[in-house]
């Protein structure tokens, strides 16, 4: 009897192949896609109330996007060969497309939109600062110093077009991550056409929640009053998206339960035992029902500003925990049962190994460090002007 194993596993299945780092991968890309979609609310859908978070959302997306490939890179048996995915991609592989989807999103969408959004300030800073800072801003101008009203109008138009392209791109980025899992027919826990859609909506939920929390925290740290109209609007959109996300997840659950195919008994057992805490308590209970109740209460009743802030922060924080739990349950949960449906294994996370807890924590802290640098480099606070294009 092998410790941690119940029933029968195929002998090569005992060891889990995808660790906590692969949990971080969809979590981080989800935050990117969600934050970007929140930014596009203001730009494309003219939701003016969320304007104060527009730049913050873009910088959040960039900070997380820069870290997104790192967990994958650390996980590979041969990280030095990862470049082969660009040079000789295998066209039938869902994973092979990651590099291209990532590069498209990073360069064509996010960097371009941020550059256009900040171009005027970059040019001004390139002329007003000195020393290293001046050099950095001069590089960031990319040699373009024309900030005439005509040039700004063009920037705005192009920025609008980029955001319009960016919305389906954000959908592609995270829907694609869902497809990586959803297309594995050998694994019934993953294999569902709903997976990309569920991933997409959960991404939007996590990204919106992250920007809401970051906005509140940064305003507190800067001792600046929070724009409650903005916060209420974000909370409302978080609620709407969350309702869709939760509905889709419940649809998946009901469908599986009603259909009860060969794998159901095995998956059901897993949810009631090994995944009970992370799935039922964390993901569904604390991570979904509680924030949904808090957000719904705000749609029904009027609370004081202080209470609302506390409720939103609690809801946002719990949402982020819940979506992380969802990613955990997909990635780790999908490997805890045997493909023979006759047994279960356990996941023992190392502490300091390459795929252990410490690297995972560091990888989760890294986007915040990048975010801090970005805030210093490209302060998002002045951008109060609504877009005209």
């Amino acid at each position, binding site marked *: 009897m092998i410790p941690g194993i119940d029933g029968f596993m*195929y*002998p090569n299945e005992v060891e889990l*192949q995808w660790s906590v780092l692969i949990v971080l991968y969809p979590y981080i890309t989800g935050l990117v896609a969600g934050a970007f979609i929140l930014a596009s609310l203001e730009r494309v859908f003219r939701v003016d109330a969320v304007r104060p978070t527009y730049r913050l959302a873009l910088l959040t997306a960039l900070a997380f996007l820069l870290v997104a490939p790192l967990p994958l890179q650390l996980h*590979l048996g041969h990280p030095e060969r990862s470049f082969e995915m660009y040079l000789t991609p295998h066209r039938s*592989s869902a994973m092979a497309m990651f590099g291209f989807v990532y590069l498209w999103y990073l360069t064509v969408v996010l960097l371009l939109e941020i550059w256009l959004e900040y171009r005027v300030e970059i040019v001004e800073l390139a002329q007003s600062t000195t020393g290293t800072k001046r050099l950095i801003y001069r590089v960031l101008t990319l040699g373009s110093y024309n900030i005439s009203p005509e040039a700004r109008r063009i920037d705005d138009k192009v920025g609008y077009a980029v955001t319009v392209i960016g919305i389906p791109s954000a959908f592609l980025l995270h829907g694609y991550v869902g497809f990586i899992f959803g297309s594995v027919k050998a694994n019934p826990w993953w294999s569902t056409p709903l997976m990309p859609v569920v991933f997409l909506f959960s991404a939007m939920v996590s990204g919106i929640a992250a920007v809401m929390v970051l906005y509140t925290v940064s305003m507190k740290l800067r001792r600046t009053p929070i724009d409650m109209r903005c916060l209420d609007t974000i909370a409302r959109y978080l609620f709407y998206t969350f309702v869709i996300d939760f509905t889709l997840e419940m649809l998946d659950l009901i469908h599986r339960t009603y259909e009860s195919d060969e794998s159901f008994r095995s998956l059901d057992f897993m949810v009631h035992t090994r995944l009970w805490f992370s799935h039922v308590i964390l993901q569904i209970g604390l991570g979904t029902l509680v924030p949904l109740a808090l957000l719904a209460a705000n749609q029904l009743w009027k609370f004081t500003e202080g209470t609302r802030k506390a409720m939103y922060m609690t809801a946002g924080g719990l949402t982020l925990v819940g979506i992380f739990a969802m990613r955990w349950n997909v990635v780790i949960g999908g490997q805890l049962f045997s493909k023979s449906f006759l047994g279960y294994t356990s996941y023992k996370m190392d502490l300091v190994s390459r795929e252990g807890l410490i690297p995972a924590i560091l990888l989760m802290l890294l986007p915040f460090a990048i975010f801090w640098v970005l805030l210093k480099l490209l302060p998002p606070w002045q951008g109060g002007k609504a877009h005209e294009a």
Partner: protein
Amino acid sequence: MDISRRDIFQVGGKLLVLASVGATLEQITGAAPPSDAYRMADHWWGMIVDIDKCIGCGNCVRGCSKENNVPEGYFRTWVERYQIEEGKPPHVESPKGAIDGFPPLARTDLKSFFVPKLCNHCADSPCVQVCPVGATFVSPDGVVMVDDNYCLGCRYCVQACPYGCRYLKPETNTVDKCTLCYHRITKGLTTACCENCPTGARLLVDFKNPKDPVHEILRTHKVQVLKPYMATRAKVYYENLDGEVR
């Protein structure tokens, strides 16, 4: 030197006996006739496993492990023992992949049988489909293999294999699996597992060889592949496979 009619009959008879022994050996071991110029296009390899012939001795696992330097704790082939009690889920075990065989049964009144497992060398392999760089591939002669010098070690193929046949080799950090003893079969030998099986439960077959016994077996026996609903076009066929086997 005079050659009498008697001499001709004697030599001819000996040759006939030798030829028939050769043919029988070929049938038993499944070995393809040795060939100096191996042409991949002339072969399409697979295997027939007869469940009723397997005695669970583990010789195949030991033979494979030794032949291919399989790291301890990982398996290119393994044997499972099923015990089935009416109305209950089957009890399945494969202690250390059955490299040391199996302990005696606690109960002898139940339906019990052994199932040797290995890569199914699927013609439509999910593992090949998902590999991001094409490091895992189906050779022109139908063997699914991994290029050690190209594999990223991402393990997407391990997730995609419905049969649990793949693992990450610790020494190379690349994915490893059964190669159907490619280094042997291309020299006209059979696989290590087939060679070491004392009962002939495993038979290496070449679907492109019109004289291969596989054609007679497929024509006259009831055979099945594992998890047919996965539609992988597996090339390891099982005779006498129980419906409970996964």
